[in-house]
């Protein structure tokens, strides 16, 4: 909380971005302590890597120091307080945190916990709930990510800056050590991303984290080897198609179940044995999520980082 307060009070936005990174990883540690490993994983992957990079690149395009507010903030304060009070009043009726007599703990959760292993057949219950029991919600999330990428493409687009010089890194000095170590590190990051993608059934992991890790490898390549270097390797056109493909795979699994006569996204239609069907369904669905997340994150990075000051 100290860090959050400090982040609000500081007007040097560069320091604020780094404090956000610190805050994000403290939150990840907190999630670990609460035994929510998948969430901690995603928080670490997104908050420490991608968000820092994107915030820094947008900071690069705008001012470094926070502008002083020009209007009197009293009206905003009143609106925020009223809304906050209304929300708190609404929450007062809800069951307490961890209250064992809450309805969700009486009916839904025991069903997942007791039947999850038998019905879906994978040790990681979080992935089972995410991809199978609540597959429709996850489909919505994937579409939201796709929509975010779409919005960034429509609003910002990827400018082809003729002054970009691939191969010349913006990090000062002749960074031979950095380039050599990065060359070895990038394949390892990609390999780790693959591990996280397919290990999600057993431990922490899954499509979202894996997509972010994959994108981080390419972001690292772009940061170290110069402007537009990643763009030469993975052109934006491919990424547009890949993002759509990811969502299509996910929806395709659902439609296939429909065509097979079962409800939308019912994986037991995918194979003779329902548990095998669940495995196959979760595999395909996580693959779709991973591809979609990877493409969208990389597209957003291209949109932000490829611009120089004069091309705003």
């Amino acid at each position, binding site marked *: 909380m100290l860090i959050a307060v400090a982040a609000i009070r500081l007007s040097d936005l560069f320091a604020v971005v780094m404090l956000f990174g610190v805050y994000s990883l403290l939150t990840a540690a907190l999630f670990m302590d609460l035994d929510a490993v998948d969430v901690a994983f995603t928080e670490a992957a997104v908050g420490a890597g991608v968000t820092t990079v994107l915030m*820094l690149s947008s900071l690069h395009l705008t001012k470094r120091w926070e502008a002083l507010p020009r209007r009197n903030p009293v009206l905003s304060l009143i609106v925020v307080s009223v809304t906050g009070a209304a929300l708190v009043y609404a929450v007062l009726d809800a069951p307490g945190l961890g209250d064992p007599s809450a309805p969700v703990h009486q009916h839904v959760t025991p069903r997942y916990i007791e039947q999850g292993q038998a019905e879906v057949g994978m040790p990681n219950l979080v992935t089972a709930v995410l991809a199978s029991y609540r597959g429709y919600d996850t489909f919505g999330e994937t579409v939201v990510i796709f929509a975010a990428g779409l919005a960034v493409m429509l609003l910002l687009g990827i400018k082809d800056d003729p002054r970009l010089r691939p191969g010349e890194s913006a*990090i000062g000095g002749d960074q031979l050590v950095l380039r050599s170590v990065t060359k070895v590190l990038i394949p390892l990051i990609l390999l780790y991303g693959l591990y996280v993608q397919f290990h999600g059934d057993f431990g922490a992991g899954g499509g979202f984290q894996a997509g972010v890790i994959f994108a*981080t490898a390419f972001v690292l390549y772009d940061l170290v080897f110069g402007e537009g270097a990643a763009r030469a390797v993975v052109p934006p056109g491919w990424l547009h198609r890949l993002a759509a493909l990811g969502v299509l795979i996910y929806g395709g699994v659902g439609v296939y179940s429909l065509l097979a006569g079962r409800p939308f996204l019912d994986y037991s239609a995918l194979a003779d044995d329902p548990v095998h069907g669940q495995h196959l369904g979760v595999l395909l669905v996580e693959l779709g999520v991973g591809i979609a997340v990877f493409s969208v994150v990389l597209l957003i990075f291209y949109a932000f980082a490829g611009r120089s000051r004069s091309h705003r």
Partner: protein
Amino acid sequence: MLTAAIIAILVTMLLALIRIFLGPTEYDRMLAANSFGTKTVLLIALAGYVLQWNSYLDVALLYALLNFVGTIAVMRFFEYRNALEGRDDPESVV
């Protein structure tokens, strides 16, 4: 002994945090943030073993990679103002 090591890491993280707040230049803040990240990796590894967290090593491995990427990102996007003097087109140093 592990507990003592965890406390030592926490103390070091606090010292690095102070440097992030103090650091007269941004370079100091970058350095302290990188140091904070490395200590977090160690903290997650050790505390995860002691407190028996689930899949803690995966998170530690991930964070070791991301700390590196974050540090490189900060370096790339930070304007090296002094480097702009003497170059023909200052706008091209992004």
